[in-house]
């Protein structure tokens, strides 16, 4: 299935000027690997050394907040993952 991915502009040094794209996966557990394959080095910026999503990274899949864990809600063809600029800042 094809999943859309959207990034905030602050991630342009990592993903380039094209702030949206797609990944192809068969199941939810493949999301992280697919992100890394599409944008090498990206997952290091989304997940910490323990494998958890970094605390201030905001992520939504379709209409729900999501930490992209393997056992999360079902994902379907055409779903969209949105990484949103953190509201914390300074």
């Amino acid at each position: 299935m094809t999943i859309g991915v959207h990034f905030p502009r602050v991630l342009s040094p990592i993903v380039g000027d094209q702030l949206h794209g797609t990944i192809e996966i068969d199941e939810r557990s493949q999301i992280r690997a697919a992100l890394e394959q599409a944008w090498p080095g990206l997952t290091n910026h989304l997940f910490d050394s323990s494998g958890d999503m970094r605390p201030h990274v905001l992520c939504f899949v379709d209409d729900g907040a999501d930490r992209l864990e393997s056992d999360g809600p079902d994902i379907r063809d055409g779903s969209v993952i949105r990484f949103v600029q953190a509201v914390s800042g300074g």
Partner: protein
Amino acid sequence: MIAIGTAKGGYLIDDSLAIQQATLFPGWKVTAWSATDGGDLIAALASNWYGASLQRSLDRIEWTPISEVPTYPSGRDLNQIWTITRAGDLLYAGVDEAGLFSSEDGGETWGEVSPLNAWPTRDQWTPGLGGLCAHHVLTHGERVVVGISAVGVFVSDDGGSSFTKRDEGVTSIAGDGADIEAGRCVHSIVAHERDPDLIWRQDHSGVYRTRDGGRQWSRIESGLPSTFGFPIGRDRSSDRLFIVPMESDENRVSAEGLFRVFMSDDGGDSWQVSGTGWDESPSYDTVLRNAMATDGEGTVVVGTTGGNVWITRDAGDTWHRADLQLPRILSTEII
């Protein structure tokens, strides 16, 4: 060209001190720069949200991410890259959480310098305000010197295969006589270009010099209004040293309410205000540890926490403040 790293992105300014590139990497801290022999430029970025990144430019206009950043296999976090130091074909990266990595392919891939990263008392190391970080790496042949806050100075004479900790004579942050191995809060170090045993040190506890590769350190503070500060630099062409005294540990503002770089003409035996050109109006501006750069030919640049850029092109005889104000400056490099 001067590269300026700030808490809000990077800036390149030209020899006339006009901005040529702005703002590079919006939203990211730019913590270090390194120009390679090949002419390309590496910038180290850090984000409170997205961690650390390395970026490379071949033309200083277009930037691409280096997909691999130094990574601890042990699960320690890599929060920030504090320095990228060239040693021939080798690159060293000093990082937070404190550790050292090396790259043999120009920064594309990185490996741990395990003898330092697996130091036996590593679990007793404690961070300074800026974090637990390896922030300075000096090299000369097989000599590798690493400054780690708030831990101390580590010296290798075999290219990083083994290290010894060398802080004898430096006051511990726990006070004189405290019997703890860590706790020497080195802020910055610089070595003589031809004599790697001659090293100067701006420490949390004062200003020091060693003539024997760090085995014994002695205070060199004559003429200073205060001994607390962060950067220390050296201009090869004039043999001059430069520091920026702050009021105190508790009051980290310009000493005596005036922003001044101090310099030494005699290897640190004595210090005085560096040259002329300073504002007479009160200023409480300060300089962080990686925000002083020298080119060895008389140019010294300091970037301040207030976003000011000061430059001398005659080894500290006269200073000029650039007509711009940037975000809080974290790093400078003459490229």
